[in-house]
């Protein structure tokens, strides 16, 4: 038995609205199937399931808005069923038993508050949900035994908070996305001690190789230089893997897979950063296909849950039209962000000559709790070296 939960599609998401089901009770689902659509502040997301089995029960109906972590459906997983069938009740009639008083609890239910504030009496699952939703348990009153705050108490508080926020529904998507970005970025700047590095990279080898490569290719198969940048970043992370990590519960958790979040600006304002999965293991052609697909879907508003929830690092490129340098703000819980400015023709010293070269400025914003400038520098050097050998990317 598995629960299909409202996913957290980004660190700033606390509630989601179920738009609709693509499956019904009794349908078979497979890990990776898209089974529901969810509206978040940022976009409408196609949500994938992580279990294989049969939908046993649907718990949340389209239109309902629920906190992250709420069970949306129950999925009965596959596995050999045990041989025992149900059992008829025991035939031995027992006398109605006199009540056995349960032993007095060994620990008083309301311990004296220690110095530094009273201890909150809350169940583990309730504590976890409250932390996930950013609800302060000290403000809740518990309905469990001895006044313990239960899961239901936290769920009620979350619903009440959603209800209070309901008038905001009228504000359009762009404003809500602005709000979501504001929350995430404010948290980032409040919590993450950023450090910044930058380096200039001669792009002539990469661009020459790309021109030659694209000459051989039909329009559909052509590459954009952005894909070379992405692949170089993904491969450089192997050398400095601590940048490919998530900051969870007070410590950095290195991620084994490189899922590059690519910042995509939406024309009506705001941005999303869906993941290109396993970017370090994809060929340039595969990465190009993934990249094109995700950009198109981001702008059409049909991203998938896994793409929004699991990037391990973000890459932002302000494109060919804009400025030379971008120092980005890290998207929590990630611990680094790589930025690229536009490619500009610049005077460049090469073998004692001043020549004109297409140059791009690569920057790194990184979390100083997790890495230091020396390692960050090694990372940018590695990106540079990789871009000097585009044929090996």
């Amino acid at each position, binding site marked *: 038995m598995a629960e299909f939960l409202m996913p957290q599609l980004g660190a700033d998401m606390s509630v989601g609205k179920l738009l609709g089901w693509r499956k019904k009770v009794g349908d078979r689902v497979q890990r990776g199937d898209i089974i529901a659509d969810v509206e978040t502040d940022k976009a409408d997301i196609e949500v994938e399931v992580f279990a294989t089995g049969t939908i046993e029960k649907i718990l949340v109906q389209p239109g309902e808005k629920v906190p992250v972590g709420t069970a949306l459906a129950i999925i009965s997983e596959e596995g050999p069923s045990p041989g025992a069938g149900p059992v008829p009740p025991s035939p031995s009639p027992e006398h109605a038993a006199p009540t056995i008083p349960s032993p007095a609890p060994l620990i008083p239910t309301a311990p004296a508050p220690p110095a530094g504030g009273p201890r909150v009496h809350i169940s583990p699952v309730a504590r976890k949900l409250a932390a996930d939703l950013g609800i302060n348990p000290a403000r809740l009153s518990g309905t469990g035994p001895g006044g313990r705050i239960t899961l239901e108490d936290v769920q009620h508080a979350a619903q009440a908070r959603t209800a209070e926020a309901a008038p905001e529904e009228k504000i359009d998507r762009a404003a809500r996305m602005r709000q979501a970005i504001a929350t995430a970025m404010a948290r980032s700047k409040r919590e993450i001690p950023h450090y910044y590095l930058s380096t200039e990279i001669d792009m002539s080898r990469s661009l020459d190789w790309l*021109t030659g490569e*694209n*000459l051989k290719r*039909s*329009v*559909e198969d*052509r590459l*954009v*230089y*952005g894909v070379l940048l992405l692949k170089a970043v993904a491969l450089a992370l192997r050398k400095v893997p601590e940048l490919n990590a998530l900051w969870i519960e007070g410590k950095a958790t290195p991620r084994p897979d490189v899922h590059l979040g690519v910042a995509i600006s939406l*024309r*009506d304002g705001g941005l999303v950063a869906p993941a290109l999965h396993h970017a370090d293991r994809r060929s340039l052609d595969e990465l190009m296909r993934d*990249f*094109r697909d995700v*950009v*198109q879907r981001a*702008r059409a508003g049909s991203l998938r849950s896994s793409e929004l929830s699991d990037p391990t690092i973000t890459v932002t490129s302000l*494109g*060919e*039209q804009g400025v030379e340098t971008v120092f980005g703000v890290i998207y929590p819980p990630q611990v680094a962000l790589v930025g690229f400015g536009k490619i500009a023709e610049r005077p460049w010293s090469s073998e004692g000559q001043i020549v004109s070269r297409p140059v791009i400025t690569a920057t790194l914003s990184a979390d100083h709790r997790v890495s230091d400038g020396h390692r960050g520098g090694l990372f940018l050097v590695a990106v540079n070296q990789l871009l000097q050998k585009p044929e090996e990317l």
Partner: protein
Amino acid sequence: MTKEQIRETVFRVLGQIAPEANLNHLKPDRSIRDQMDLDSMDLLNFVVGLHKELQVEIPESDYPKLSTLNGCFDYLASRKNAA
């Protein structure tokens, strides 16, 4: 293929790339990219769209000729009639 058909095709492909843009406001002699805030991926999708609709090969070196609406109409008309 008439100039009007080419014009319709260009607008249809642009519309697919940026459904929210008001194409009637585009000035025919100014950069499409600047007016619509397109990035390199959009441009690639634009060229791929034109290729699919009109069956013309567009080498990368010709991309600058597609920078304005009028440039697109002229370039595509010449490619189409040459083909």
